[in-house]
């Protein structure tokens, strides 16, 4: 409710040049047109899309497999569930981002681990070809919260369905394919939407690991980090507002596409 006013202001600002010192100067679509030839903007898009489109599916796949694994025949489920959830709670913090930066740094324990296999040490966070993957690892590591949602979904599937299928002679694979997977599609859909939107807005790990600037040759320049740099270090408020609107449109389009596609693959109670 309170966001409508600011949203209108932000839309207005996106058509202006504004540095907070002089009054906004109307420039029409210039800010949007300029993005096309802004290499850092294009790089930020590439980095963010890679992060989202690789990180989220990997994270959800991990969450899903572990939920299936933990669901049956395991004593102490609450304990394991809690342990796997810890990274989701602590993971978004600055402290964990610092830990990641250290772990994958030149003197980090990741190199120490690799030296067992005789792999030469290097700084995984400073090397532009690997730095983004260290952040994707951090995202995947926080699979606990979607996993708990999957587990809750698995508990909802009536046991009678499996019994009936077993009587009909369906093996474990067919039971998974015809019962478990379709029953969970609403939850897969929900997790997908939430995690994609969250991942688009990720900021802290990129800021800490990349030293506030986007890392070596902008290899970890997340979209929100670029927006932050434009708005709060360069004070280009007009351009930053335009960036914010492009992010909104991207998230909107993604959500819309997911909702559209959901008609084809999401099964609601029949």
């Amino acid at each position, binding site marked *: 409710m309170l966001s409508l006013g600011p949203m209108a202001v932000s839309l207005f600002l996106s058509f202006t040049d504004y540095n907070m010192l002089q009054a906004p100067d109307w420039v029409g679509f210039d800010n949007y047109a300029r993005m096309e030839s802004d290499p850092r903007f294009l790089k930020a898009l590439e980095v963010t899309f890679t992060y989202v489109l690789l990180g989220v599916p990997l994270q959800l796949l991990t969450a899903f497999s572990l939920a299936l694994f933990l669901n049956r025949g395991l004593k102490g489920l609450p304990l394991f569930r809690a342990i796997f959830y810890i990274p989701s709670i602590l993971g978004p913090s600055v402290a964990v981002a610092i830990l990641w930066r250290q772990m994958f740094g030149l003197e980090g324990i990741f190199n120490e681990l690799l030296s067992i296999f005789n792999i030469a040490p290097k700084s995984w966070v400073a090397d532009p070809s690997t730095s983004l993957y260290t952040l994707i690892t951090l995202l995947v590591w926080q699979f606990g919260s979607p996993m708990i949602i999957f587990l809750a979904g698995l508990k909802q599937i009536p046991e009678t369905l499996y019994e009936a299928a077993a009587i009909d002679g369906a093996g474990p694979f067919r039971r998974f394919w015809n019962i478990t997977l379709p029953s969970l599609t609403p939850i897969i859909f929900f997790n997908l939407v*939430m995690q994609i939107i969250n991942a688009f807005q990720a900021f802290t790990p990129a800021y800490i690991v990349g030293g506030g600037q986007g890392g070596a040759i902008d290899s970890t320049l997340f979209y929100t980090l670029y927006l932050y740099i434009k708005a709060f270090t360069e004070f280009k408020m007009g351009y930053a507002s335009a960036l914010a609107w492009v992010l909104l449109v991207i998230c909107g389009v993604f959500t819309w596409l997911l909702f559209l596609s959901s008609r084809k693959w999401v099964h609601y109670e029949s």
Partner: protein
Amino acid sequence: MSRVYAANKGASVIKTVIAVIASAVMLYPLLWMLASSFKPQHLIFQDLSLWPDVFTLENYINGWNGFTNLTFGTFFKNSFIVVLFCIIGNLLTCSMAAYAFARLEFTARNFWFALMFGSLLLPHHVVLIPQYILFDSLDWINTYMPLIVPKFLASDAFFIFLMVQFIRGLPLELDQAAKVDGCGHIQIYGRIIVPLLLPAIVTTSIFTLIWTWNDFFSQLIYISDPRKLTVALALRSFMDTMGQSSMGSLFAMSILSLVPIFIFFLVFQRWLIEGIATYGVKG
């Protein structure tokens, strides 16, 4: 029969072993940081072990002393102040807004509800800059107002949504009975709804605490005065000013910064896990 039982038991043992190994791998980085925070500085690197050979509190003592004459005591105090007010704000205003959505009739209620729901799915970056300009014109930069005041304006759509769902589950007869007894909306809200809302109130408090404590982005934008830094900001400054030579102190303070949310997690983990299982919180 007993063979089947034995096979099941065997499978269960193997499963437990795999789960234990997976847990160990998951927790290893955190445990390593914990162990390293007790190791002397020169032994931290190139040491994968989770048990310090030489145990020292030096990192904690050096780290706590902070920088520019400010100790981490100040930063923790600052973070706690922000968190406390954010929780109060969210509880007060989100519960009122939720009551209005769930129980009151007003024009275009569904429209406003849809709008609120939409704001859950869209990035808040679009309102960031206008908000910053507004708070700047109010001279609120380098105060906690920009972090706290929005919470007193029911800005956290997620918690409103959670509470609306909860209130809708409460029987309407309670409201009607109270109305017959002469209660107005304020009394129904205060005496009937709020006490029954307790589970949602606990969930809201826990998640507000965790998210505010972990928040970095908005704190980074609004706070730069060293005396006002929160723990998250202080860690980042600490990292920038110290460098590799005091990694031990940085680790020690990082560990300390995780302690409050970890304790909350331990105490309330049942609520937390039920919270996400039911409402699908992002965590």
